[in-house]
Structures are given as C-alpha cells and as structure tokens.
C-alpha cells in the first residue's frame, strides 16, 4: 500500500542533502554574482530544513531556535552582499564574477 508509507526524517535529511549539493554546484558554475547569492540561499535553506527535521526527530525545540538565528544572519548577509554588488556594478556595468579577478578598484 502506497498510502501506508510515511515519510521518515531520513527522507527530509536526504532531500536537504540533495538541495545542498545543487546549491554547491550552482555557486561554482554560475557567473552572475546575484545568481550565486541565490545559490547560497539554497544551501542555507537546506541547512534550515536539516535543523527543523532533526529538531522534530530528537524532540527538542533548540533546533528551531537555531533556524531562527540562521534566518537573521542570512538576512544580514544578503543585505551586505547585495550592497557590495551594487557598489561594484556602479563602477563597471555588466560584470560577471570572472571580471573581478583583481581586488584593486
């Protein structure tokens, strides 16, 4: 019976691992800095899903607290990262990550 199968925590953890792998691949392959940030968000969400799954697996609320803090840090990280992208793109237009091989402005 298909209806009798219940998804266990392992399914969620494996899905989070797959999501993390896709995010890793995206960060290394994509050249648009904005899309690279989106791939980092994918990896952060994979970690969040892992924390929430394990929180309900070991029946402890602290996993959810960690996810709360991860979300705060992710918001701050996106703001700083996009600020850097805006500051760089204002000087030269149409950059990809390959054009930024030198740090010297």
């Amino acid at each position, binding site marked *: 019976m298909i209806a009798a199968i219940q998804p266990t925590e392992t399914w969620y953890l494996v*899905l989070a691992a797959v999501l993390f792998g896709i995010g*890793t*691949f995206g960060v290394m392959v994509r050249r648009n800095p*904005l*899309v690279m940030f989106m791939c980092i968000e994918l990896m952060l969400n994979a970690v969040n899903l892992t924390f929430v*799954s394990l929180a309900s697996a*070991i*029946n402890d609320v602290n996993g959810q607290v960690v996810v709360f803090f991860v979300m705060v840090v992710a918001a701050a990280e996106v703001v700083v990262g*996009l600020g850097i992208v805006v500051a760089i793109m204002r000087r030269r237009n149409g950059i990809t990550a390959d054009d930024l091989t030198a740090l010297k402005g």
Partner: protein
Amino acid sequence: MELVVFVLAAAMVLAGALGVITRSNPVHAALSLVLTLFGIAVMFVSHNAHFLAAVQVIVYAGAIVVLFLFVIMLLGVDRAEDVNIEPLTVQRPLAAIVGAGVMGIIIAAIVVADDVLVTRGSGLLATTVEKPDDNIRQLARSIFSDNVFAFELTSVLLLVAVIGTVLMARRVKSNGEGK
C-alpha cells in the same frame, strides 16, 4: 496524506532549485527561488514549526527575494546571460563532481547515523486547534531565556550590517568632499 505533502513539497523544492541554477535570466532564477522557499515552508509546517514557516514566507520569500529583484532591476542586469558559454573548460564537470561528492558524503553520513536518531530532547509541543500558539510560546521561551545573549548579539549584527551597507552604497564625492 503526509506522503502526498512530502512528494509535492519535494517536487517544488527540487524544481525551484534546478530552476535557480539553470535559468539564464536572473529574474527567472529569483522566481524559481521563491518556489523552493515555499516548498521548504510547507515542510516546516509538516514538522510542526509553524512560526518558522511564517517567518520563512515573510522574510525569505517576501523581503529577501524582493531585495534580489530590486537589485536586479536597479542595476539593469535582467538580460539573459548566455549559459552555454563555459569560460573555464573543465569548470562544469569538476563542479558536478564536487557537488555530487558533497551530496554523497552527506547522504552517506545520514544513512550511517540513522540509528543514532533517538528522542532525547525536552519535548516539542505540537500545534493543535485547541492550542494554536504552543509552538511560538515554546520558541519564545527558549529564545528569551536560554538564548537571550545570542538574541542580543543578533541585534548588534543587524546594526553593523545596516551601517556597513549604508557606508558602502553611499556615493563618495570626488576630491574628498564626501568626507
């Protein structure tokens, strides 16, 4: 029923993630990211993390993706990037190997450590119709008692991020007039 929810949410998450890394237009990638974030929010709900699901939708799918779209529109980089060009010849196969390797290592660790998952926590209150605010109460009690120092530090972090971003994005006038 749980199986149906899991399959649908997993399909949303994976379709969105593949969309982020394959769509050539950054706007389409950002919209695919929204799909993934909603799928994750559905999974949070099925794990009784209702507050985090709400925060996920508001903060991630709301604020962060809107910020991405805002920057894309502001900078005018919404034209499609040619994803068929591969500047470094072995970059994609190597990236695929590394990504698959990371995935494989994590999955192997999950499978090996599967029997370690035992219930040992202090209890996770499930949200019910009679007590709809149990999850948020428990979360708040933990944040404002055990983790209050980390909570205060996040306010410092946000303040530093805001000040740093304002300084960085400010248009510096030439000849030191902006100082």
